Protein backbone atom coordinates (compact mmCIF):
# COMPACT_ATOMS: atom_id res chain seq x y z
CA UNK A 1 0.00 0.00 0.00
CA UNK A 2 1.44 3.36 -1.04
CA UNK A 3 0.74 6.60 0.71
CA UNK A 4 0.92 10.07 -0.78
CA UNK A 5 -0.25 13.28 0.86
CA UNK A 6 -3.61 14.51 -0.30
CA UNK A 7 -5.17 17.75 0.85
CA UNK A 8 -8.36 19.54 -0.01
CA UNK A 9 -9.42 23.14 0.61
CA UNK A 10 -12.78 23.38 2.34
CA UNK A 11 -15.00 26.26 3.45
CA UNK A 12 -14.48 28.17 0.22
CA UNK A 13 -18.09 29.25 -0.14
CA UNK A 14 -19.56 28.61 3.29
CA UNK A 15 -17.09 28.87 6.17
CA UNK A 16 -16.99 26.40 9.01
CA UNK A 17 -18.82 27.84 12.03
CA UNK A 18 -16.91 26.82 15.12
CA UNK A 19 -18.40 26.16 18.56
CA UNK A 20 -16.42 29.12 19.85
CA UNK A 21 -18.43 31.41 17.58
CA UNK A 22 -15.53 32.01 15.23
CA UNK A 23 -15.44 30.98 11.61
CA UNK A 24 -12.85 29.23 9.46
CA UNK A 25 -12.64 29.97 5.76
CA UNK A 26 -10.50 28.24 3.15
CA UNK A 27 -9.04 25.68 5.48
CA UNK A 28 -7.10 22.57 4.49
CA UNK A 29 -7.94 19.00 5.38
CA UNK A 30 -5.35 16.35 4.63
CA UNK A 31 -6.71 12.85 4.10
CA UNK A 32 -5.84 9.37 2.94
CA UNK A 33 -7.97 6.71 1.34
CA UNK A 34 -7.49 2.96 1.13
CA UNK A 35 -9.39 0.46 -0.99
CA UNK A 36 -11.86 1.35 -3.70
CA UNK A 37 -15.14 3.21 -3.64
CA UNK A 38 -17.75 0.88 -5.11
CA UNK A 39 -20.41 1.88 -7.63
CA UNK A 40 -23.18 2.31 -5.06
CA UNK A 41 -20.85 4.32 -2.82
CA UNK A 42 -22.07 2.26 0.12
CA UNK A 43 -18.77 0.77 1.25
CA UNK A 44 -17.28 3.85 2.89
CA UNK A 45 -15.70 3.65 6.32
CA UNK A 46 -14.46 6.76 8.07
CA UNK A 47 -11.64 6.29 10.54
CA UNK A 48 -11.25 9.00 13.17
CA UNK A 49 -7.79 9.25 14.66
CA UNK A 50 -6.89 9.96 18.26
CA UNK A 51 -4.91 12.81 19.85
CA UNK A 52 -1.50 11.90 18.48
CA UNK A 53 -2.65 10.02 15.39
CA UNK A 54 -2.79 11.09 11.77
CA UNK A 55 -4.40 10.19 8.47
CA UNK A 56 -1.83 7.47 7.72
CA UNK A 57 -3.72 4.60 9.30
CA UNK A 58 -2.52 1.84 7.02
CA UNK A 59 0.55 1.16 4.93
CA UNK A 60 3.73 3.11 5.61
CA UNK A 61 3.63 6.60 7.05
CA UNK A 62 5.74 8.69 4.62
CA UNK A 63 7.00 10.92 7.44
CA UNK A 64 7.99 8.41 10.07
CA UNK A 65 8.68 5.63 7.53
CA UNK A 66 6.99 3.34 10.02
CA UNK A 67 3.78 1.34 9.54
CA UNK A 68 0.59 3.42 9.94
CA UNK A 69 -0.87 3.54 13.44
CA UNK A 70 -3.65 1.07 12.63
CA UNK A 71 -1.91 -0.99 9.97
CA UNK A 72 -2.68 -4.11 12.01
CA UNK A 73 -6.42 -3.55 11.62
CA UNK A 74 -6.77 -1.89 8.21
CA UNK A 75 -5.65 -3.57 5.01
CA UNK A 76 -6.22 -6.47 2.70
CA UNK A 77 -8.03 -9.27 4.59
CA UNK A 78 -7.60 -7.45 7.89
CA UNK A 79 -10.61 -6.68 10.16
CA UNK A 80 -11.25 -3.44 8.23
CA UNK A 81 -10.78 -5.13 4.91
CA UNK A 82 -9.67 -2.80 2.12
CA UNK A 83 -10.66 -5.42 -0.47
CA UNK A 84 -14.24 -4.74 0.50
CA UNK A 85 -14.31 -1.28 2.05
CA UNK A 86 -13.26 2.19 0.98
CA UNK A 87 -11.51 3.63 4.01
CA UNK A 88 -11.08 7.36 4.55
CA UNK A 89 -9.08 8.94 7.32
CA UNK A 90 -8.45 12.67 7.59
CA UNK A 91 -6.00 14.57 9.75
CA UNK A 92 -8.19 16.29 12.32
CA UNK A 93 -8.73 20.02 12.24
CA UNK A 94 -6.02 21.51 14.43
CA UNK A 95 -3.73 18.61 13.65
CA UNK A 96 -0.22 18.93 12.28
CA UNK A 97 0.05 16.64 9.31
CA UNK A 98 -1.42 18.74 6.53
CA UNK A 99 -4.74 19.90 7.95
CA UNK A 100 -5.15 23.48 9.06
CA UNK A 101 -3.84 23.93 12.56
CA UNK A 102 -1.69 26.30 14.59
CA UNK A 103 1.49 25.54 12.63
CA UNK A 104 -0.07 26.41 9.26
CA UNK A 105 -0.17 29.79 7.57
CA UNK A 106 -3.27 31.85 8.14
CA UNK A 107 -4.41 32.56 4.56
CA UNK A 108 -5.84 35.90 5.66
CA UNK A 109 -2.66 37.25 7.28
CA UNK A 110 -0.01 35.09 5.54
CA UNK A 111 1.49 34.53 8.98
CA UNK A 112 1.61 31.37 11.03
CA UNK A 113 -1.52 30.92 13.08
CA UNK A 114 0.33 29.93 16.26
CA UNK A 115 -1.87 30.81 19.22
CA UNK A 116 -4.17 32.94 17.08
CA UNK A 117 -5.63 29.71 15.76
CA UNK A 118 -9.19 29.53 17.08
CA UNK A 119 -9.86 27.06 19.88
CA UNK A 120 -11.63 24.10 18.32
CA UNK A 121 -13.84 21.30 19.62
CA UNK A 122 -14.50 17.68 18.73
CA UNK A 123 -17.72 18.81 17.05
CA UNK A 124 -15.76 21.28 14.92
CA UNK A 125 -13.46 18.46 13.80
CA UNK A 126 -16.47 16.33 12.89
CA UNK A 127 -18.09 19.20 10.97
CA UNK A 128 -14.88 19.56 8.97
CA UNK A 129 -14.92 15.80 8.27
CA UNK A 130 -18.53 16.10 7.09
CA UNK A 131 -17.49 18.86 4.68
CA UNK A 132 -14.77 16.57 3.36
CA UNK A 133 -17.20 13.68 2.89
CA UNK A 134 -19.66 16.00 1.09
CA UNK A 135 -16.87 17.25 -1.14
CA UNK A 136 -15.98 13.65 -2.02
CA UNK A 137 -19.61 13.07 -3.03
CA UNK A 138 -20.32 10.52 -0.31
CA UNK A 139 -23.76 10.58 1.28
CA UNK A 140 -23.61 7.72 3.76
CA UNK A 141 -20.89 6.19 5.83
CA UNK A 142 -21.19 2.47 6.40
CA UNK A 143 -19.29 2.99 9.61
CA UNK A 144 -17.47 5.65 11.59
CA UNK A 145 -14.75 4.07 13.67
CA UNK A 146 -12.41 5.57 16.21
CA UNK A 147 -10.57 4.89 19.44
CA UNK A 148 -10.02 7.34 22.30
CA UNK A 149 -10.48 10.90 20.92
CA UNK A 150 -11.40 9.12 17.67
CA UNK A 151 -14.21 7.52 19.67
CA UNK A 152 -15.39 11.00 20.70
CA UNK A 153 -15.63 11.83 17.01
CA UNK A 154 -17.52 8.62 16.22
CA UNK A 155 -20.02 9.41 18.99
CA UNK A 156 -20.26 12.99 17.76
CA UNK A 157 -20.87 11.85 14.17
CA UNK A 158 -23.76 9.67 15.33
CA UNK A 159 -25.13 12.59 17.35
CA UNK A 160 -24.77 15.35 14.74
CA UNK A 161 -25.26 13.48 11.47
CA UNK A 162 -27.36 10.38 12.29
CA UNK A 163 -28.83 10.27 8.79
CA UNK A 164 -25.37 9.98 7.25
CA UNK A 165 -24.07 7.23 9.51
CA UNK A 166 -25.20 3.61 9.33
CA UNK A 167 -23.04 2.35 12.14
CA UNK A 168 -20.50 3.59 14.64
CA UNK A 169 -17.73 1.80 16.52
CA UNK A 170 -16.57 3.97 19.41
CA UNK A 171 -13.59 2.23 21.04
CA UNK A 172 -11.89 2.81 24.42
CA UNK A 173 -13.70 6.06 24.79
CA UNK A 174 -16.15 8.12 26.82
CA UNK A 175 -18.93 10.65 26.42
CA UNK A 176 -17.10 13.41 28.29
CA UNK A 177 -13.72 14.20 29.77
CA UNK A 178 -13.49 13.48 33.48
CA UNK A 179 -11.69 15.65 36.01
CA UNK A 180 -8.78 13.20 35.94
CA UNK A 181 -8.62 13.31 32.12
CA UNK A 182 -8.50 17.10 32.21
CA UNK A 183 -5.92 17.02 35.01
CA UNK A 184 -3.49 14.84 33.05
CA UNK A 185 -3.92 17.02 29.97
CA UNK A 186 -3.29 20.16 31.96
CA UNK A 187 0.02 18.81 33.27
CA UNK A 188 1.00 18.08 29.67
CA UNK A 189 0.07 21.56 28.53
CA UNK A 190 1.89 23.18 31.43
CA UNK A 191 5.00 21.17 30.53
CA UNK A 192 4.88 22.60 27.00
CA UNK A 193 4.06 26.16 27.99
CA UNK A 194 6.75 26.31 30.67
CA UNK A 195 9.44 25.30 28.16
CA UNK A 196 11.29 28.59 27.36
CA UNK A 197 11.50 27.47 23.73
CA UNK A 198 7.70 27.60 23.51
CA UNK A 199 8.07 31.41 23.20
CA UNK A 200 4.42 32.09 24.05
CA UNK A 201 3.49 29.85 21.16
CA UNK A 202 5.55 31.73 18.56
CA UNK A 203 8.38 29.20 18.40
CA UNK A 204 8.14 28.73 14.62
CA UNK A 205 8.82 32.43 14.04
CA UNK A 206 11.68 32.25 16.54
CA UNK A 207 13.01 29.10 14.82
CA UNK A 208 12.81 27.10 18.01
CA UNK A 209 10.93 24.00 19.17
CA UNK A 210 9.74 23.35 22.73
CA UNK A 211 11.17 19.85 22.57
CA UNK A 212 11.59 19.30 26.28
CA UNK A 213 8.09 20.41 27.18
CA UNK A 214 6.42 18.39 24.44
CA UNK A 215 8.45 15.32 25.23
CA UNK A 216 7.60 15.48 28.95
CA UNK A 217 3.92 15.89 28.00
CA UNK A 218 4.16 12.79 25.85
CA UNK A 219 6.00 10.78 28.52
CA UNK A 220 3.33 11.57 31.07
CA UNK A 221 0.49 10.81 28.67
CA UNK A 222 2.13 7.57 27.60
CA UNK A 223 2.08 6.29 31.18
CA UNK A 224 -1.69 6.68 31.19
CA UNK A 225 -2.04 4.75 27.92
CA UNK A 226 -0.59 1.60 29.45
CA UNK A 227 -1.52 -0.23 32.63
CA UNK A 228 0.36 -1.05 35.79
CA UNK A 229 0.46 -4.72 34.73
CA UNK A 230 1.70 -3.86 31.24
CA UNK A 231 4.55 -1.75 32.61
CA UNK A 232 5.49 -4.50 35.04
CA UNK A 233 5.32 -7.19 32.36
CA UNK A 234 7.34 -5.17 29.85
CA UNK A 235 10.02 -3.67 32.10
CA UNK A 236 9.79 -4.77 35.69
CA UNK A 237 12.84 -3.28 37.40
CA UNK A 238 15.14 -4.20 34.51
CA UNK A 239 18.19 -1.99 34.13
CA UNK A 240 19.16 -0.31 30.88
CA UNK A 241 22.51 -1.65 29.59
CA UNK A 242 24.01 -2.04 33.04
CA UNK A 243 24.33 -4.59 35.77
CA UNK A 244 23.64 -2.39 38.77
CA UNK A 245 22.20 1.04 39.51
CA UNK A 246 24.62 3.93 38.98
CA UNK A 247 23.74 6.01 42.02
CA UNK A 248 22.95 8.99 39.81
CA UNK A 249 20.18 10.54 37.80
CA UNK A 250 20.96 9.34 34.32
CA UNK A 251 18.92 6.52 32.85
CA UNK A 252 19.15 3.46 35.10
CA UNK A 253 15.91 1.64 34.38
CA UNK A 254 14.58 0.34 31.10
CA UNK A 255 11.26 2.01 31.72
CA UNK A 256 12.99 5.40 31.91
CA UNK A 257 14.76 4.79 28.65
CA UNK A 258 11.53 3.66 27.05
CA UNK A 259 9.63 6.78 28.12
CA UNK A 260 12.43 9.06 26.98
CA UNK A 261 12.40 7.35 23.61
CA UNK A 262 8.62 7.81 23.41
CA UNK A 263 9.05 11.50 24.19
CA UNK A 264 11.87 12.07 21.71
CA UNK A 265 10.26 10.32 18.75
CA UNK A 266 7.05 12.22 19.41
CA UNK A 267 8.79 15.59 19.24
CA UNK A 268 10.06 14.72 15.76
CA UNK A 269 6.61 14.16 14.38
CA UNK A 270 4.24 16.34 16.40
CA UNK A 271 3.64 20.04 16.84
CA UNK A 272 3.50 21.40 20.39
CA UNK A 273 0.73 23.92 19.71
CA UNK A 274 -1.35 21.25 18.00
CA UNK A 275 -0.96 19.23 21.18
CA UNK A 276 -2.34 22.16 23.18
CA UNK A 277 -5.30 22.68 20.86
CA UNK A 278 -6.28 19.03 20.52
CA UNK A 279 -6.03 18.26 24.25
CA UNK A 280 -8.19 21.34 24.85
CA UNK A 281 -10.76 20.10 22.35
CA UNK A 282 -10.84 16.77 24.20
CA UNK A 283 -11.24 18.50 27.57
CA UNK A 284 -14.18 20.48 26.20
CA UNK A 285 -15.87 17.29 24.98
CA UNK A 286 -19.08 16.85 26.97
CA UNK A 287 -21.61 15.13 24.74
CA UNK A 288 -24.57 14.94 27.20
CA UNK A 289 -24.24 18.68 27.72
CA UNK A 290 -24.96 19.33 24.05
CA UNK A 291 -28.66 18.73 24.50
CA UNK A 292 -31.20 18.99 27.29
CA UNK A 293 -31.92 15.50 28.55
CA UNK A 294 -28.36 14.37 27.86
CA UNK A 295 -27.29 11.25 25.99
CA UNK A 296 -30.77 9.76 25.95
CA UNK A 297 -32.19 12.74 24.13
CA UNK A 298 -29.21 13.00 21.83
CA UNK A 299 -29.68 9.43 20.62
CA UNK A 300 -33.47 9.26 20.80
CA UNK A 301 -34.82 7.50 17.68
CA UNK A 302 -31.29 7.19 16.31
CA UNK A 303 -31.04 4.98 13.23
CA UNK A 304 -27.35 4.38 13.93
CA UNK A 305 -26.21 0.89 14.87
CA UNK A 306 -23.57 1.02 17.60
CA UNK A 307 -20.83 -1.38 18.55
CA UNK A 308 -19.14 -0.11 21.67
CA UNK A 309 -15.87 -1.65 22.78
CA UNK A 310 -13.92 -1.11 25.99
CA UNK A 311 -10.85 -2.71 27.55
CA UNK A 312 -10.65 -4.05 31.09
CA UNK A 313 -7.33 -2.37 31.96
CA UNK A 314 -8.08 1.02 30.35
CA UNK A 315 -7.89 3.60 33.13
CA UNK A 316 -8.07 6.63 30.85
CA UNK A 317 -11.63 5.82 29.78
CA UNK A 318 -12.67 2.90 31.99
CA UNK A 319 -15.44 0.52 30.98
CA UNK A 320 -17.99 2.22 33.24
CA UNK A 321 -18.15 5.16 30.83
CA UNK A 322 -18.78 2.89 27.86
CA UNK A 323 -21.47 1.17 29.89
CA UNK A 324 -23.14 4.49 30.60
CA UNK A 325 -23.35 5.08 26.86
CA UNK A 326 -24.72 1.56 26.37
CA UNK A 327 -27.32 2.09 29.10
CA UNK A 328 -28.46 5.36 27.54
CA UNK A 329 -28.69 3.73 24.12
CA UNK A 330 -30.65 0.81 25.56
CA UNK A 331 -32.94 3.23 27.33
CA UNK A 332 -33.99 4.71 23.98
CA UNK A 333 -34.19 1.32 22.25
CA UNK A 334 -31.18 1.99 20.05
CA UNK A 335 -29.43 -0.83 18.28
CA UNK A 336 -26.34 -1.42 20.37
CA UNK A 337 -23.76 -4.11 20.89
CA UNK A 338 -21.15 -3.88 23.61
CA UNK A 339 -18.03 -5.86 24.37
CA UNK A 340 -15.47 -5.43 27.10
CA UNK A 341 -12.19 -6.98 25.97
CA UNK A 342 -10.02 -8.68 28.61
CA UNK A 343 -6.50 -7.34 28.32
CA UNK A 344 -3.72 -5.96 30.51
CA UNK A 345 -2.52 -3.62 27.75
CA UNK A 346 -4.45 -0.59 28.96
CA UNK A 347 -5.94 2.22 26.91
CA UNK A 348 -3.62 1.64 23.95
CA UNK A 349 -4.92 -1.92 23.53
CA UNK A 350 -6.98 -0.77 20.54
CA UNK A 351 -3.79 0.00 18.64
CA UNK A 352 -2.31 -3.39 19.32
CA UNK A 353 -3.03 -6.74 17.83
CA UNK A 354 -5.72 -7.90 20.24
CA UNK A 355 -7.34 -10.96 18.70
CA UNK A 356 -10.75 -10.74 20.37
CA UNK A 357 -10.96 -7.02 19.64
CA UNK A 358 -10.08 -7.50 16.00
CA UNK A 359 -12.67 -10.26 15.71
CA UNK A 360 -15.36 -8.01 17.17
CA UNK A 361 -14.62 -5.25 14.67
CA UNK A 362 -14.40 -7.69 11.78
CA UNK A 363 -17.64 -9.43 12.72
CA UNK A 364 -19.64 -6.28 13.32
CA UNK A 365 -18.46 -4.64 10.10
CA UNK A 366 -18.99 -7.62 7.86
CA UNK A 367 -22.47 -8.32 9.27
CA UNK A 368 -23.43 -4.63 8.91
CA UNK A 369 -22.09 -4.64 5.35
CA UNK A 370 -24.04 -7.82 4.58
CA UNK A 371 -27.27 -6.30 5.91
CA UNK A 372 -26.68 -3.18 3.82
CA UNK A 373 -25.98 -5.28 0.73
CA UNK A 374 -22.36 -4.21 0.28
CA UNK A 375 -20.76 -6.67 -2.08
Amino acid at each position, binding site marked *: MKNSIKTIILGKKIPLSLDSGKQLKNFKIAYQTYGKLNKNKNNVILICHALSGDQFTAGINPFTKKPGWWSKAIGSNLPIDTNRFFVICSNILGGCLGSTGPKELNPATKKFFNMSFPVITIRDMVKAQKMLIDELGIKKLLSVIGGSAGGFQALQWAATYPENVISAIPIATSFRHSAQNIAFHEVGRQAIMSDPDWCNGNYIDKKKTPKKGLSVARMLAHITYLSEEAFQRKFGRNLQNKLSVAYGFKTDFQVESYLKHQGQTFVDRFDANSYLYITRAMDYFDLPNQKKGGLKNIYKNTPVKFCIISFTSDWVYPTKYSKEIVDSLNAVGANVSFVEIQTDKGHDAFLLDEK*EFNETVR*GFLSSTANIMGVN
Partner: protein
Amino acid sequence: MNRLDFEIIRNVIAAPKDTSMIIDVPMILDVGCENGELLKFLNKKKKIDGRGLEISQKNVNICVKHGLSVVQGDADKDLIAYPSKSFDFVILSQTLQATHSPEKVLSQLVRISKYAIVSFPNFGSWLLRLKLLINGIMPQSKSLPHSWYTTPNIHLCTIKDFKKLCEKNSIKIEKSFYLNKYGKQINNPIGKIFNNFFSTSGLFVLKK
Protein backbone atom coordinates in the same frame (compact mmCIF):
# COMPACT_ATOMS: atom_id res chain seq x y z
CA MET B 1 -26.10 -25.89 22.76
CA ASN B 2 -29.60 -26.63 21.66
CA ARG B 3 -32.11 -25.46 24.16
CA LEU B 4 -35.14 -27.62 24.64
CA ASP B 5 -37.70 -24.90 24.64
CA PHE B 6 -36.97 -23.04 21.38
CA GLU B 7 -40.07 -24.27 19.58
CA ILE B 8 -42.40 -23.43 22.43
CA ILE B 9 -40.93 -19.95 22.77
CA ARG B 10 -41.41 -19.39 19.05
CA ASN B 11 -45.02 -20.47 19.27
CA VAL B 12 -45.68 -18.22 22.24
CA ILE B 13 -44.32 -15.25 20.33
CA ALA B 14 -46.24 -16.14 17.18
CA ALA B 15 -49.53 -16.62 19.02
CA PRO B 16 -49.72 -14.94 22.40
CA LYS B 17 -52.88 -15.21 24.47
CA ASP B 18 -53.67 -11.57 23.97
CA THR B 19 -54.04 -11.23 20.20
CA SER B 20 -53.25 -7.52 20.35
CA MET B 21 -49.77 -8.74 21.15
CA ILE B 22 -49.28 -10.07 17.63
CA ILE B 23 -46.81 -7.52 16.41
CA ASP B 24 -45.24 -7.22 12.98
CA VAL B 25 -41.72 -7.04 14.28
CA PRO B 26 -41.72 -7.82 17.98
CA MET B 27 -38.97 -6.36 20.10
CA ILE B 28 -37.36 -9.25 21.96
CA LEU B 29 -34.61 -9.39 24.57
CA ASP B 30 -32.94 -12.73 25.19
CA VAL B 31 -31.28 -12.61 28.58
CA GLY B 32 -28.33 -14.98 28.68
CA CYS B 33 -28.50 -15.40 24.91
CA GLU B 34 -25.23 -17.39 24.73
CA ASN B 35 -24.18 -17.57 21.06
CA GLY B 36 -27.43 -16.08 19.82
CA GLU B 37 -28.93 -19.36 18.65
CA LEU B 38 -32.42 -18.67 19.94
CA LEU B 39 -32.53 -15.18 18.42
CA LYS B 40 -31.41 -16.58 15.07
CA PHE B 41 -33.95 -19.40 15.37
CA LEU B 42 -36.75 -16.92 16.11
CA ASN B 43 -35.72 -14.66 13.25
CA LYS B 44 -35.92 -17.48 10.70
CA LYS B 45 -39.69 -17.77 10.52
CA LYS B 46 -40.74 -14.32 11.61
CA LYS B 47 -38.83 -11.06 11.53
CA ILE B 48 -37.99 -9.90 15.02
CA ASP B 49 -36.06 -7.00 16.47
CA GLY B 50 -33.89 -9.15 18.66
CA ARG B 51 -31.46 -8.01 21.31
CA GLY B 52 -29.33 -10.00 23.68
CA LEU B 53 -27.64 -9.75 27.04
CA GLU B 54 -24.79 -12.17 27.54
CA ILE B 55 -22.10 -12.49 30.16
CA SER B 56 -19.36 -14.13 28.11
CA GLN B 57 -17.24 -11.97 25.83
CA LYS B 58 -16.62 -14.86 23.43
CA ASN B 59 -20.34 -15.44 23.02
CA VAL B 60 -21.02 -11.73 22.50
CA ASN B 61 -18.43 -11.77 19.73
CA ILE B 62 -20.12 -14.71 18.04
CA CYS B 63 -23.45 -12.85 18.22
CA VAL B 64 -22.00 -9.60 16.88
CA LYS B 65 -20.44 -11.51 14.01
CA HIS B 66 -23.88 -12.77 13.05
CA GLY B 67 -25.30 -9.27 13.04
CA LEU B 68 -27.11 -9.61 16.35
CA SER B 69 -27.19 -6.68 18.76
CA VAL B 70 -25.87 -8.09 21.97
CA VAL B 71 -24.58 -6.32 25.03
CA GLN B 72 -22.07 -7.90 27.34
CA GLY B 73 -23.65 -7.85 30.76
CA ASP B 74 -25.14 -9.66 33.67
CA ALA B 75 -28.83 -10.43 34.29
CA ASP B 76 -28.38 -9.68 37.99
CA LYS B 77 -26.91 -6.22 37.44
CA ASP B 78 -27.83 -4.86 34.04
CA LEU B 79 -31.58 -5.33 33.55
CA ILE B 80 -32.17 -2.29 35.70
CA ALA B 81 -30.82 -0.06 32.90
CA TYR B 82 -33.67 -0.90 30.52
CA PRO B 83 -36.71 1.34 30.70
CA SER B 84 -40.10 -0.09 31.63
CA LYS B 85 -42.01 -2.02 28.96
CA SER B 86 -39.30 -1.45 26.39
CA PHE B 87 -39.72 -4.96 24.95
CA ASP B 88 -42.63 -7.03 23.77
CA PHE B 89 -41.03 -10.21 25.04
CA VAL B 90 -38.10 -10.87 27.29
CA ILE B 91 -36.76 -14.39 27.44
CA LEU B 92 -34.87 -16.03 30.27
CA SER B 93 -34.30 -19.58 29.16
CA GLN B 94 -32.83 -22.06 31.66
CA THR B 95 -30.95 -19.27 33.43
CA LEU B 96 -33.08 -18.19 36.41
CA GLN B 97 -31.54 -20.85 38.64
CA ALA B 98 -28.06 -19.43 37.96
CA THR B 99 -28.85 -15.86 38.97
CA HIS B 100 -27.82 -14.42 42.32
CA SER B 101 -31.18 -12.96 43.03
CA PRO B 102 -34.00 -14.69 41.12
CA GLU B 103 -36.68 -12.60 42.78
CA LYS B 104 -35.13 -9.32 41.67
CA VAL B 105 -34.39 -10.65 38.20
CA LEU B 106 -37.96 -11.84 37.81
CA SER B 107 -39.33 -8.47 38.88
CA GLN B 108 -37.05 -6.72 36.40
CA LEU B 109 -38.15 -9.02 33.59
CA VAL B 110 -41.85 -8.24 34.01
CA ARG B 111 -41.01 -4.57 34.40
CA ILE B 112 -39.00 -4.13 31.21
CA SER B 113 -41.23 -6.24 28.99
CA LYS B 114 -44.90 -6.72 28.28
CA TYR B 115 -44.39 -10.47 28.54
CA ALA B 116 -41.62 -12.48 30.14
CA ILE B 117 -40.93 -16.03 29.02
CA VAL B 118 -39.10 -17.92 31.73
CA SER B 119 -38.01 -21.53 31.72
CA PHE B 120 -36.02 -23.48 34.30
CA PRO B 121 -35.23 -27.05 35.32
CA ASN B 122 -37.76 -28.44 37.80
CA PHE B 123 -36.03 -29.69 40.92
CA GLY B 124 -39.29 -31.29 42.00
CA SER B 125 -39.28 -33.87 39.19
CA TRP B 126 -39.82 -37.42 40.40
CA LEU B 127 -36.51 -38.59 39.01
CA LEU B 128 -34.52 -36.05 41.03
CA ARG B 129 -36.62 -36.75 44.12
CA LEU B 130 -35.99 -40.47 43.72
CA LYS B 131 -32.26 -40.00 43.21
CA LEU B 132 -31.98 -37.94 46.36
CA LEU B 133 -34.18 -40.33 48.32
CA ILE B 134 -32.29 -43.44 47.31
CA ASN B 135 -28.71 -42.24 46.86
CA GLY B 136 -28.78 -39.52 49.49
CA ILE B 137 -26.52 -37.26 47.41
CA MET B 138 -27.29 -34.13 45.40
CA PRO B 139 -28.94 -35.47 42.27
CA GLN B 140 -27.51 -34.88 38.79
CA SER B 141 -29.34 -35.17 35.50
CA LYS B 142 -29.03 -34.25 31.85
CA SER B 143 -30.26 -30.71 32.50
CA LEU B 144 -28.40 -30.46 35.82
CA PRO B 145 -25.10 -32.14 35.03
CA HIS B 146 -22.82 -30.43 37.58
CA SER B 147 -21.57 -31.58 40.96
CA TRP B 148 -22.89 -29.54 43.87
CA TYR B 149 -19.50 -27.89 44.32
CA THR B 150 -19.05 -26.73 40.73
CA THR B 151 -22.61 -25.98 39.72
CA PRO B 152 -23.51 -22.49 38.48
CA ASN B 153 -27.09 -23.35 39.45
CA ILE B 154 -27.18 -21.78 42.86
CA HIS B 155 -30.91 -21.15 43.14
CA LEU B 156 -32.67 -24.33 42.09
CA CYS B 157 -36.38 -24.51 42.65
CA THR B 158 -39.41 -26.62 41.92
CA ILE B 159 -42.36 -25.56 39.79
CA LYS B 160 -44.37 -25.14 42.98
CA ASP B 161 -41.69 -22.88 44.45
CA PHE B 162 -41.68 -20.79 41.30
CA LYS B 163 -45.43 -20.32 41.28
CA LYS B 164 -45.32 -19.24 44.91
CA LEU B 165 -42.67 -16.64 44.12
CA CYS B 166 -44.77 -15.27 41.26
CA GLU B 167 -47.76 -15.03 43.56
CA LYS B 168 -45.71 -13.25 46.21
CA ASN B 169 -44.68 -10.64 43.64
CA SER B 170 -48.15 -10.37 42.04
CA ILE B 171 -46.79 -11.69 38.77
CA LYS B 172 -49.51 -13.23 36.63
CA ILE B 173 -48.81 -16.56 34.94
CA GLU B 174 -50.47 -16.26 31.53
CA LYS B 175 -49.45 -19.63 30.16
CA SER B 176 -47.71 -22.71 31.57
CA PHE B 177 -45.88 -25.43 29.72
CA TYR B 178 -44.68 -28.60 31.41
CA LEU B 179 -41.93 -30.41 29.61
CA ASN B 180 -40.54 -33.91 29.81
CA LYS B 181 -36.86 -34.72 29.58
CA TYR B 182 -37.01 -34.60 25.78
CA GLY B 183 -38.29 -31.04 25.89
CA LYS B 184 -41.70 -32.18 24.70
CA GLN B 185 -44.83 -30.84 26.26
CA ILE B 186 -46.56 -33.20 28.70
CA ASN B 187 -50.10 -33.55 27.43
CA ASN B 188 -51.62 -36.39 29.46
CA PRO B 189 -54.04 -35.14 32.15
CA ILE B 190 -52.29 -36.84 35.08
CA GLY B 191 -48.96 -35.37 34.05
CA LYS B 192 -50.55 -31.96 33.83
CA ILE B 193 -52.20 -32.16 37.22
CA PHE B 194 -49.09 -33.48 38.93
CA ASN B 195 -46.80 -31.30 36.86
CA ASN B 196 -44.43 -30.60 39.74
CA PHE B 197 -43.84 -34.34 40.00
CA PHE B 198 -43.70 -35.33 36.33
CA SER B 199 -42.02 -32.48 34.45
CA THR B 200 -38.28 -32.07 33.95
CA SER B 201 -38.64 -28.39 33.29
CA GLY B 202 -41.27 -25.69 33.19
CA LEU B 203 -41.81 -22.76 30.87
CA PHE B 204 -44.02 -19.88 31.87
CA VAL B 205 -45.33 -16.77 30.19
CA LEU B 206 -45.50 -14.03 32.79
CA LYS B 207 -47.03 -10.62 32.94
CA LYS B 208 -47.36 -7.83 35.43
